[in-house]
């Protein structure tokens, strides 16, 4: 593609295919290519390498060029983790907890998934692995009650960070989204201003549905960031570009494996490079 000399329709078609294959989505892809044509005209770009650089620059205009860190100044900082079923919420909490305890922070986990089989046991293992404590009730308990207790315990014990796990839920289930709204309200009641971070976990292998997920979850609990998981596979998760553009929600971390260390801060420049390799 980038050894061509002229920018004919085949050239743009091939660029579109790279973006579509990365799950950028057809709407965002067509907008990006349209902007690229303007840039080529305005800046009189001649070489294919210039055009590729221009396209990467357009994407970075949307994603931002600098990593966006977590807001960790509050004590305790309350982080709510949500998303649809199976995307990697519980595992991501384990990884985040380990990051914080390695920095000498006191970390508490709240087992807010009281529904799925062995969800609490799964989080307990991550608590052990990351040297953090866990607040849990019995299976079937009210998730809001567990998370309320988690916030109270975090404040009482002087924890630096409270990570709240929630059950996976499909965003088109009104009753489950109502439950999530209640959890969000309860956290704020327990500690005004909390949650300080609301992270949506998105699976890189998911297609356009991630945008719908982001929109609906954002309405239930205003999102402060995205964690994009399973980037160690072959999917690129390009839908985060549309999420950034339409909802202004930044990707803060990426999951790159199932191990406790497999979490990295999101580096927009490296990410955009990876779409084209």
């Amino acid at each position, binding site marked *: 593609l980038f050894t061509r000399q002229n920018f004919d329709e085949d050239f743009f078609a091939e660029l579109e295919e790279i973006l579509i294959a990365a799950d950028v989505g057809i709407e965002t892809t067509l907008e990006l290519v349209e902007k690229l044509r303007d840039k080529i005209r305005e800046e009189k770009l001649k070489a294919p390498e210039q055009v590729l650089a221009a396209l990467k620059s357009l994407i970075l205009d949307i994603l931002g060029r600098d990593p966006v860190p977590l807001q960790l100044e509050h004590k305790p900082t309350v982080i709510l983790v949500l998303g649809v079923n199976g995307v990697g919420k519980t595992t991501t909490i384990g990884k985040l907890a380990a990051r914080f305890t390695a920095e000498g922070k006191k970390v508490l986990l709240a087992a807010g998934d009281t529904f799925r089989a*062995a969800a609490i046991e799964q989080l307990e293992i991550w608590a052990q692995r990351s040297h953090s404590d866990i607040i849990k009730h019995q299976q079937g308990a009210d998730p809001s009650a567990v998370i309320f207790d988690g916030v109270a315990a975090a404040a009482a014990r002087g924890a630096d960070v409270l990570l709240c796990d929630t059950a996976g839920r499909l965003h088109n289930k009104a009753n489950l989204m109502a439950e999530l709204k209640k959890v969000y309200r309860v956290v704020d009641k327990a500690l005004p201003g909390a949650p300080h971070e609301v992270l949506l976990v998105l699976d890189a292998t998911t297609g356009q*549905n991630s945008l719908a997920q982001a929109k609906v979850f954002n309405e239930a609990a205003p999102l402060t960031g995205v964690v994009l998981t399973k980037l*160690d596979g072959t999917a690129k998760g390009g839908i985060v570009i549309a999420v950034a553009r339409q909802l202004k929600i930044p990707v803060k971390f990426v999951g790159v494996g199932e191990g406790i260390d497999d979490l990295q801060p999101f580096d927009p420049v490296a990410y955009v490079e990876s779409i084209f390799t």
Partner: protein
Amino acid sequence: NLSSKLQETFRRLRGKGKLTEKDVNTALREVRLALLEADVNFKVVKDFVATVKERCLGSEVLESLTPGQMVIKIVNEELTKLMGESVAKLKPADKPPTIIMLVGLQGSGKTTTVAKLANHLKKANHSPLLVAADVYRPAAIKQLQVLGEQLKLPVFQMGQQNPVQIARAAVEQAKKNHNDYVLVDTAGRLHVDEELMDELVQMEEALQPQEILLVVDAMTGQDAVTVAESFKNRLGLTGIVLTKLDGDTRGGAALSVRAVTGCPIKFVGLGEKTDAFEPFYPDRMASRILG
């Protein structure tokens, strides 16, 4: 939706007399967009549109009074044909037990699907044995045990041993206890993880299963083709289970996986409970993908 977009496209084109190939291309662009929005893989879309185009260049469309409706009819027919037939049957062994392996990416819904399949078999008067062969994920064995308890069905586990050994021992127990189905829950894995893919190859070799079902999340995007191809190249896949179809994804991954593996989609998951399990209906899937 696609139907109204095509009606509109042809309404605008009609005014200028007889339809040409160029007009058909304009209409097919709408079909391409609709399928890409539905997450169908772009290469699968290319092939599909080419097939549809061939039929659209005949008189059935060019001389129709309602060409938009004709194109929709052709798209629906070709899509339903590609989806295959409703094949919710499992291939039984000549001598019990019938062995079924469930495989797929992390978080696709395998463990839950094993429980649903066991429930489905129990309701049809079979006696399945569930096998906890995921020795990696925290509390995976416990998860299957809890589901087995809910269904009052036996779960075979040997703690964190070699998954292939666990599965073989389970088959021996099934023979002793007259379980006529053995359902093996395997750990989620990446198609690009050589070591873990080798583990599945060894398991297939050791068990000689009647079925290997690839469990695919209905919201999977373009990657569905790469994943399905890799699993198909290494294993004797016999079927697909599409999960989380109770979401609002258009589910184009179904078309991608069908096109690339040729395997029948046997069942769909429609919820988190163990009874949220149904046979796959190709015509319903086709109209869902078209939106």
